[in-house]
Structures are given as structure tokens and as C-alpha cells.
């Protein structure tokens, strides 16, 4: 049943099914109901990592090295543990900058350097070609073996075929056509290929199921389970060594560790891995599931590798069967036609998946980062002015796909037979590992420069070329074998497999050590030795601080028009694509495109550049934009302008601070005012209650005595007279009190009428002393008055000043001891004022009372025990009067040594200066 035609039919039906899946997924994506945008499909698509190498090669490696194949999958697991930090950052950067490929990513990081993008592309293409040849070898080899069924014959034994009968060539051409149909049907500005991703995810399922089916069959069908296979292997002399492989067949621990490191880099920087993980990612959150699901996939596909390898060895004890083919040849030997066909389809899916994604990724790089920048620079071609360039982009990509696959075939013809599958793949791994220092360094280290990246990449690649590719070419006879054996020109120190005498390591470890030293050394060294340009610094910040800062257009200076920018975009995205992009931009700014003229400012230019970058890569987009808008380099003036703006911002913030301080001050003033109002309100209440209290005291007294007089008619006359006297005095006091309250209220409300005029204080003092002479006589207190012969008049109300003086004099009398009491009144000029002292030798006023006595109803001494000696309003009123005329009233006193009340009043304007002072001023 298994013949050439059924095999070809099965293979093409399988490819047809893939195409149908891709077509369906694309349709769904266009309808906005993507089947690809979920974490399971995303995780499965990452399994494009497992290629023909995994499917056929792992078994081959295991048959000679035991578990030595495992670091290729353990390394990625370790790296993926860090993805939540590293890959999330890359995803965010790629989204913000619309990265289209690995070359684009690295070029963008280092100032959008077109040169760097080109170098990355060249390294990637040269480095990956052996890997693609591996897939061609896998497919054509498995096809040739299967067609010989039921005989088991290795392809080498069939002899070399002429080129046009060579399956490898046909496989390459068919795959090229298939990839072109898959990946370059149309141009997507986001570089998403949802159909391709769906097909790849499906392929991942197929290859896993096929491999597990073969594994289960070999382990449990051919043998009696794991124990049986390993038990027999332990009994076999050749296989016993593979049970504890390290140090024996698999090389030392160093080679194990370097393989781990190598594959850690490969999972990040193989162009196809970058494509499915970063470019095709539709949602950052899908990464979460992939972080554990993808390693689980790798574990599952590796469980049966060793049993199949051992089983194969035991099955073909006579040898002659390549271990790389055990997955296919064991079912064939057991006459399991369907399983053999399934194994072939599984291998086909592993190989096609790799080839499709890898060539799409590489063709994007070749187009965007190698060919377009060169074409756009040639002004003679006039490409920058051409109307529609989408056909050109697609053409370049299609050409690149064909070219890459043909190069892969060429390598397969030249060197393919000399190496096992895994050895070929590892050469490619070592090539892409050269991207790790500049890419990872660029993510976390701002200091890396464009020149450093260029130096690192080229020197690392040169060492790779010399230590891995040159020996491969020499072994295949394309270079003299003496280069390997004796070194170039007989220089032993430069032998490609033992550079500088470093021998005893396997080829990959040796190459990795030297290339990494050269790569990292040059990258760091040149970066540190040079200086970064403004653009380099800007891009470094954009990458390293992607989680800290928002997307912000760089400072841009130039002249452009919105229609010109629209034109550029239309050339690469088509008219409709450009319209949609502009409409989206306008919507984001709250405008309606075409109704309002968009301003071609830095933001719009930035928008167009990132859109363009999505189609043709950052480096090409940079060139296009620079050619379209008359962009000017940053001048000193621009920098100054930026600085001025920054300065203004600082100033504004300072002003704002000032304002807020003022506001704070106003608030606290307002608060104080409010407190004062509350205080005044409380004082008013106090005043009213105190006044009522003060009025009641004399009233009570009057009422009591008048009731005695009325109720006791037999009271003798002397007694009556005394009582009437008291009533009269209390009434007087009451009157005085009421007058004073009225006075105070009038003064405070400003309603008191003042009779203002020039007053001679000497006369006022004399009149007051006369008015109070009776009091002095009654208590026997002496009074001494000393006034100058002449004083200038003061402007005041005569009656009110008399009131003040009488108040002070009566207070002085009140607090003097009878017989030895002495009150002195002294008038003097003091500067521009007259000063009146009224001194008594009474008991004095305690310091704590000296301010109380000027408050309303405030009385010195204990008001509860001492009988009140006045109304408590005299001094407050006096002070109000004096202050009304611009003077001051205060007291100086010590307890037991009398008190001196002093007030001043300013002399009237135009009054003559005193002679002393007049002399002093001359």
C-alpha cells in the first residue's frame, strides 16, 4: 500500500489541509473574530521550536549521547522562567515601536541604524541557512526511506542523484511556493499572519501526536514498557555507557552547560521564535499561559526520545541504519504502514512549520532591513516618489523566500551529508546566539551604542564563521582540509577547532567561548569608548524605560504637510490603509479626518513613522520620513528652546507653589478673623451679662433700703436720713454706670459726638482738681500739681479730657490711705506730645492686674471677696478717649509702692517747637 504516490498524495493532502486552516483563520481574523488570539494557540505556535531536528535528530543524538540532547530543551525552560521579565518587556517595546522583525528590533534600539539592521539580517540569513538545509534533509531523507518500503535503505546508499531528480530541490521549491502563498498574500502594517499562526499551531499538535504515537508503539508495542527497553539497554554493551552519559560520550559538564546557554539564546533570538513570540503576539497576557504550557510541550515531546533511540539500537543490532531515522524505520521494520506514514507526516509538519515561519521572518528582514534601505537610498531609482510600492515589497519578500530556500538546498548539497541533523542545527544556534549580547544588553543597559553593537555582532559572527562554518566547508571538501588539521598557512595557533591552542572541547563549546568573548568584549568595549548621539540616547531610553514612560514623540523640527505624509503612507499601505490610519489618528485627537486639516506637527510625523515602520521596518521608515519632510537636525537653538520650555515649567511650578502658600496664609488669616469674631461675640455676651449684674447691685441696695423706710415708720430721723443718703448715692452710682455704658457703646460704635478744639491741658488739670477737691478733703488726701509755665495746646474734646482726668484722680484718691495719702499730678512736654502723670502712693496694682483694669468691668484684686470700688468702666472709657485723639494711656506700678497712670496727647499741628529741641536741630 505504501508507495511513492500514496506518500506524495498524503503529503499534499496534509499541506492542503494546512492551507485550508490558514485560509479559514485569515477569514475569521478579517471578520474580527480571530481564532488565533487566545493563549492556547499562542503557546502551541511557540512549539515551532521543535523542528525536524527534534523529530528525527533528538533520537539520533540520544543514540550516541544518551540524554545529551536534553539541554536543547532545558535551556529554553530556564530562559522562559525569565520571560515574565524579559519577554514582557520585548513585547511592550515591539508594540510601541511596531517592530517587524528581530533585525528591526536591534536596529531600532541602536538609533534605527539601517547598517545595523542589514548586518543582523546578513548574519541571520547566513546563520539560519544550515538550519533550513537540515529541514530539507529531514523531509527528503524521510521521503526517500519511506518510498523504499518494505526495504530499509539509507538515502546515502541510493547514490547521488542528478539535481533535477533530487527530492531535496523539489521539496525546497514546493515549500517556497507554499510559504509565499502563506506569508506574502497581502501586506499587513502590523505584520500579523494569523492564518500562518493557526497552521503552525495545528502542525505543533500533529508532530506531538505523531511522535507520541511512535514512542508509545516502540515502548509498549515492540517492547514491554520503559523497564523492558532500559533493562535490555543496560544489558547491551554499546548502550550501557549511555545510561550515565556525562563525562563519557556526551562530553564534560562544560559542554552540557554551554549547550544549555546556547539554547537559552536560541529560544529568544531564532528569527522564527522572535516572529511567533513577539511579532505574532496579539495580547501580552497570552504570555502567561505560554510560560508553563510551552515547556510542558517540550517535556512531552522528549519523554520517548530515549526509549525510541535505545529501541532502535536494539532493533537494528547489525547497524547500517542511521539513528536519525529510527522514528521512521522502527515502525517500517515492524510493518506498521499507517504508523510509518503518520511518522512521516509528523516529520513533515515539524519541518514545514519551521521552514514557513523562518523564511517569512527572514524575508521580512531581507526586505525591510536589507533591500529597502538600499533601494530607498538610491535617489536615481526614484522609489521614494513612486506612487504605490506594495507590489515591490511583496515582490522582494517572495524573491527572498525563494532565494533563502535555494541557499538552504545548496548548503544541503554541499555540506549536508557530512553532519548529523543536530550538529547542523547547533551551528545555526551558535549563529543566532550572537544576537543575545546586543539584544539583551539593549534591553537593560542604556550605555550600549550603535558602534558597539556593530562591533560586537561582526566580531562574534566572524569568530562563528571561522570556528564553525569554515570546518564544515573544509570537511565537505570545499576548502582544503589542511586548514582544520594544521591551521591556515600552517599556523597551529589558528586552527579553527582549537583556536589559540584551546583544545579538548567539543566544537560548539569551543566556538561559543571564543565568539562570546569577542562579541561581548567588542560590544561593551566600543560602547564604553564611544559617545552616544541624541538619537541613540533617545532610543535607549525608549527601550530600557519602556515600563516607566509613556509613548512620547521625540522632539522634532522640520517642515511637512499632512497631505505629503498621507502620500508617503499611501505608497506603502495603499490609499485605503493610509486613510484609515489618518482617521484613527484624528479620532484619537478628537477630530474628524478630512473635515479638519491635521497639523503636520511632530506628533503626526511620529505617528506616520511608526505606521510606516510596521510595514517596512524602522530603518526604512526613518529614511522615507527623512526624505519626505524637510527634517532639520537638532540645532543648539532647538536645544535651548527645549531648555527654555523646561525652565518655564519650573517657573510655573514655583509660582504655583507661591500661590498655594498665599492661599494658605489667607486661609489662616480668615481662620484668625473667624476666631476673633467668635471672641467678640463671646465678649458681647459677657458684656451684657456683666452690665446686668453691675446694674442689679445698686438696684438691690436701693430697693432694700426703700423697703425698710416704708415698712418701718418708727425709724428715727437720723437713721432715715442715713438710708436716704445711701439710696441717693446708689442712684447716682446707677446713673453714672448707665452713662458710662452709654458712653462706651457710643465710643465703640463711633456715634459719640466730639466737641473738638484746642485745649490747654493746664486749665483742664486745674478744673479737674477743683472738681475732685471735695473727695480729697473727705479722705484727707493731699494733692500736689506741677505744670510747666507754658505748654502748647492739644486738639481734643475738653469735656472728655476732664472726664479722663477726674476718673484718674478719683481712682487715685480711692486707693490712697487716708492720712498720709498723696496724689501728684505732673504735666510735661515729651517730643511732639504732652504727658500727664497721675501718681498715688496707695497699695499699688499687681502686674497681673495691670492689663485687666483696662478691660470693661475689670477690677484689680479679688472681685469675690473685695467690695467693688468702682464701676469698672472708667479706665476703659478713658483709654478709648485718649486713643481717639491719638494718645496712649497706661499704668506703671509696683505692689505696695503706689501706681502712676500716664497718658499722652499729641500737640496741635503748627504749635511752636520747644526751644531745646529747636536748638538741637540747628
Amino acid at each position, binding site marked *: 500500500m505504501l508507495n511513492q504516490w500514496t506518500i506524495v498524495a498524503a503529503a499534499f493532502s496534509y499541506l492542503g489541509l494546512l492551507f485550508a486552516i490558514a485560509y479559514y483563520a485569515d477569514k475569521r481574523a478579517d471578520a474580527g473574530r480571530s481564532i488565533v488570539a487566545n493563549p492556547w494557540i499562542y503557546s502551541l505556535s511557540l512549539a515551532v521550536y521543535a523542528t525536524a531536528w527534534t523529530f528525527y535528530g533528538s533520537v539520533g543524538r540520544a543514540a550516541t549521547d*544518551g*540524554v545529551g540532547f*536534553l*539541554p536543547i530543551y*532545558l535551556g529554553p*525552560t*530556564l*530562559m*522562559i*522562567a*525569565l*520571560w*515574565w*521579565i524579559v519577554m514582557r518587556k520585548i513585547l511592550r517595546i515591539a508594540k510601541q515601536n511596531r517592530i517587524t522583525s528581530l533585525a528591526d528590533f536591534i536596529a531600532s534600539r541602536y538609533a534605527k541604524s539601517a547598517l545595523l539592521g542589514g548586518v543582523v539580517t546578513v548574519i541571520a540569513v547566513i546563520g539560519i541557512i544550515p538550519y533550513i538545509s537540515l529541514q530539507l534533509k529531514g523531509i527528503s531523507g524521510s521521503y526517500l526511506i519511506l518510498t523504499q518500503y518494505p526495504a530499509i535503505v539509507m538515502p546515502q546508499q541510493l547514490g547521488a542523484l542528478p539535481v533535477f531528480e533530487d527530492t531535496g530541490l523539489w521539496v525546497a521549491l514546493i515549500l517556497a511556493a507554499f510559504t509565499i502563498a502563506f506569508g506574502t498574500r497581502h501586506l499587513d502594517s502590523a505584520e500579523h499572519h494569523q492564518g500562518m499562526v493557526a497552521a503552525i499551531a495545528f502542525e505543533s499538535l500533529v508532530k506531538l501526536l505523531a511522535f507520541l504515537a511512535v514512542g508509545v508503539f516502540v515502548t509498549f508495542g515492540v517492547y514491554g514498557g*520503559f*523497564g*523492558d527497553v*532500559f*533493562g535490555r539497554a*543496560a544489558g547491551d554493551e554499546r548502550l*550501557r555507557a549511555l*545510561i*550515565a*552519559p*556525562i*563525562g563519557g560520550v556526551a562530553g564534560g*559538564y562544560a559542554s*552540557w*552547560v554551554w549547550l*544549555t546557554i546556547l539554547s537559552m539564546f536560541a529560544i529568544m533570538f531564532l528569527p522564527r521564535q522572535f516572529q511567533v513570540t513577539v511579532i505574532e503576539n496579539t495580547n501580552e497576557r497570552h504570555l*502567561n*499561559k505560554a*510560560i*508553563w504550557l510551552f*515547556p*510542558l510541550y517540550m*517535556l512531552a515531546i522528549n*519523554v520517548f526520545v*530515549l526509549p525510541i533511540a535505545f529501541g532502535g539500537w536494539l532493533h537494528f543490532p547489525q547497524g547500517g541504519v542511521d539513528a536519525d531515522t529510527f522514528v521512521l524505520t522502527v515502525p517500517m521494520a515492524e510493518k506498521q504502514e499507517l504508523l510509518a506514514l503518520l511518522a512521516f507526516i509528523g516529520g513533515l509538519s515539524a519541518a514545514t512549520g519551521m521552514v514557513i515561519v523562518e523564511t517569512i521572518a527572514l524575508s521580512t528582514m531581507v526586505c525591510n532591513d536589507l533591500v529597502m534601505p538600499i533601494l530607498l537610498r538610491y535617489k536615481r531609482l526614484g522609489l521614494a516618489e513612486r506612487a504605490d510600492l506594495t507590489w515591490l515589497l511583496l515582490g522582494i519578500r517572495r524573491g527572498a523566500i525563494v532565494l533563502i530556500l535555494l541557499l538552504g538546498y545548496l548548503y544541503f548539497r554541499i555540506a549536508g551529508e557530512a553532519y548529523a541533523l543536530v550538529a547542523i542545527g547547533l551551528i545555526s544556534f551558535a549563529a543566532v546566539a550572537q544576537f543575545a549580547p546586543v539584544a539583551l544588553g539593549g534591553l537593560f543597559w542604556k550605555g550600549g551604542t550603535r558602534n558597539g553593537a556593530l562591533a560586537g555582532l561582526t566580531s562574534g559572527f566572524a569568530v562563528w564563521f571561522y570556528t564553525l562554518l569554515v570546518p564544515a566547508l573544509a570537511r565537505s571538501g570545499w576548502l582544503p582540509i589542511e586548514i582544520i588539521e594544521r591551521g591556515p598557512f600552517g599556523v597551529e595557533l589558528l586552527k579553527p577547532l582549537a583556536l589559540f591552542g584551546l583544545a579538548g572541547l567539543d566544537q560548539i563549546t569551543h566556538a561559543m567561548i571564543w565568539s562570546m568573548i569577542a562579541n561581548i568584549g567588542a560590544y561593551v568595549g566600543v560602547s564604553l569608548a564611544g559617545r552616544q548621539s541624541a538619537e541613540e540616547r533617545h532610543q535607549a531610553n525608549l527601550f530600557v524605560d519602556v515600563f516607566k514612560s509613556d509613548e512620547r514623540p521625540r522632539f522634532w523640527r522640520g517642515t511637512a504637510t499632512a497631505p505629503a505624509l498621507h502620500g508617503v503612507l499611501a505608497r506603502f499601505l495603499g490609499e485605503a490603509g493610509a486613510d484609515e490610519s489618518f482617521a484613527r489618528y484624528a479620532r484619537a485627537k478628537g477630530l474628524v479626518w478630512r473635515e479638519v486639516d491635521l497639523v503636520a506637527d511632530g506628533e503626526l510625523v511620529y505617528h506616520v513613522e511608526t505606521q510606516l515602520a510596521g510595514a517596512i521596518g524602522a530603518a526604512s521608515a526613518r529614511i522615507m520620513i527623512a526624505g519626505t519632510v524637510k527634517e532639520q537636525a537638532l540645532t543648539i537653538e532647538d536645544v535651548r528652546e527645549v531648555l527654555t520650555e523646561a525652565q518655564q515649567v519650573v517657573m510655573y511650578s514655583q509660582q504655583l507653589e507661591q500661590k498655594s502658600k498665599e492661599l494658605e496664609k489667607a486661609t489662616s488669616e480668615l481662620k484668625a478673623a473667624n476666631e476673633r469674631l467668635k471672641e467678640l461675640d463671646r465678649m458681647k455676651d459677657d458684656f451684657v451679662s456683666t452690665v446686668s449684674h453691675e446694674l442689679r447691685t445698686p438696684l438691690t441696695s436701693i430697693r432694700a433700703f426703700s423697703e425698710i423706710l416704708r415698712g418701718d415708720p418708727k425709724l428715727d430721723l437720723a437713721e432715715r436720713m442715713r438710708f436716704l443718703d445711701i439710696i441717693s448715692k446708689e442712684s447716682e452710682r446707677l446713673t453714672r454706670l448707665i452713662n458710662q455704658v452709654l458712653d462706651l457703646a457710643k465710643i465703640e460704635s463711633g456715634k459719640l459726638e466730639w466737641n473738638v478744639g484746642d485745649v490747654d491741658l493746664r486749665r483742664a488739670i486745674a478744673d479737674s482738681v477743683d472738681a475732685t477737691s471735695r473727695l480729697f478733703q473727705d479722705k484727707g488726701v493731699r494733692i500736689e500739681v506741677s505744670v510747666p509755665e507754658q505748654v502748647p495746646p492739644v486738639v481734643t474734646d475738653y469735656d472728655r479730657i476732664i472726664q479722663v482726668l477726674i476718673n484718674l484722680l478719683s481712682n487715685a484718691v480711692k486707693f490712697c490711705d487716708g492720712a498720709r495719702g498723696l496724689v501728684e499730678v505732673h504735666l510735661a512736654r515729651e517730643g511732639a506730645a504732652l504727658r500727664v502723670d497721675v501718681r498715688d502712693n496707695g497699695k499699688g496694682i499687681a502686674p497681673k492686674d495691670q492689663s485687666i483694669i483696662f478691660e470693661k468691668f475689670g477690677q484689680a484684686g479679688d472681685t469675690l471677696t473685695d467690695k467693688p470700688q468702682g464701676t469698672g468702666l472708667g479706665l476703659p472709657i478713658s483709654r478709648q478717649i485718649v486713643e481717639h485723639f491719638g494718645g496712649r494711656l497706661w499704668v506703671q506700678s509696683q505692689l505696695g509702692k503706689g501706681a502712676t497712670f500716664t497718658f499722652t496727647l499729641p500737640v496741635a499741628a503748627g504749635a511752636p517747637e520747644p526751644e531745646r529741641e529747636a536748638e538741637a536741630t540747628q
Partner: protein
Amino acid sequence: MNDMRKAQACVALCLLGALLFNYPFLALFNRAALFFGIPVFYVYLFAAWGVLIALMAYVIERKDE
């Protein structure tokens, strides 16, 4: 788990893996012995790998407390 702690747990797991799949741990199991009929080296590698993946799933998928 917040982002900082998650990142720290991820680094810790990567270091744990680097330790498990390296000398001297490998040397402990790199011997020609069988464990229930299966080579110990093979059992150890797959068991450690499986545990590591399980821990990664736990750290990543654990819901915020």
C-alpha cells in the same frame, strides 16, 4: 502576587533550574543505576524538569491575593 514579587519568584526559579541542571547536582545522578528499571539520570532530569514547570505555572497563574 504583585509584579515585583512575581519577577523575583521568576528569577528564583530560573536560578533553581540552573542549579538543578548543572554540576554538581548532575554528577549525583550521573551513574549507571536503574530506578524501577529506568536510568536514574533520566528519571532525575524529567522529574526535576516537571517540578520546575509546575512551579512556574504556580507562580505565573496564581491569582492576586
